[in-house]
């Protein structure tokens, strides 16, 4: 059986932090007591960071529009993995961008690279007027 947790937020920068903190407390809950402290910490940090990256991307683009919009972050807690999806109403985009070249001292563009590195699954789809990013991490 799986449990669903839903968080809806205004598409504004300040709320990205809220989503990542909720993600961290959920990760801490599902990882359970039977793990080594360092493994628990690593899992929780990875999950929190991935949510922070996805939601920050989403609110950054949302803020480029005049009309306020809401974001929906859905967590699904399954026996073997924790999944999160981020849904927004921004224009479509691609997650298949290459990572920025370090030698050019880039200040943007690391988010997708980080997500791909720390999560086990990472997909994007367009659903009508919505973007949906889905990320999973195995327990």
């Amino acid at each position, binding site marked *: 059986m799986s449990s669903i947790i839903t968080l809806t937020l205004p598409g504004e*920068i*300040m709320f990205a932090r809220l989503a990542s903190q909720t993600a961290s407390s959920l990760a801490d809950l599902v990882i359970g007591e039977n793990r080594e402290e360092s493994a628990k910490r690593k899992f929780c940090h990875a999950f929190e960071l991935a949510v922070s990256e996805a939601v920050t991307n989403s609110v950054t683009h949302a803020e480029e529009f005049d009309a306020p919009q809401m974001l929906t972050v859905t967590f699904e807690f399954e026996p073997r993995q924790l999944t999160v999806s981020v849904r927004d109403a921004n224009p479509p985009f691609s997650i298949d961008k290459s990572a920025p070249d*370090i030698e050019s001292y880039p*200040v943007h563009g690391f988010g997708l690279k*980080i997500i791909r590195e720390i999560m086990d699954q990472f997909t994007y789809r367009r659903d009508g007027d919505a973007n949906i990013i889905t990320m999973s991490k195995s327990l």
Partner: protein
Amino acid sequence: MNITETSNGAIAIVAIEGRLDALSAPELRNNRSVIDPEKTVVLNLEKLDFMNSTGLGAIVGALNQKLQPDFGIVLSCMNDDVRSVFEITNVQKLFHIFDDTAAAVEFATTRQGAHT
């Protein structure tokens, strides 16, 4: 996020505490020592709990302000979570990173001395 600043000779030691993300990054970007091209800054990350790629971008942006990309910003005392963000993105290649602030300050002072 909280920023506290002390100095050691010509070196500014800027300590960042809390969370460095999209909400708090502007405060680092606008810090007076960070934006001064000639000021050598040791960023003490000992009390930085969490940093995402926006925060990382702000630290690279701070380095971009400096006349001396080799030692304009020197990093010290990051925790494993923060270190992982530097490693995943390979940004650690751009910085000298120390496990203690005194060593970072000593390095920065020596390099700065060699340039003046």
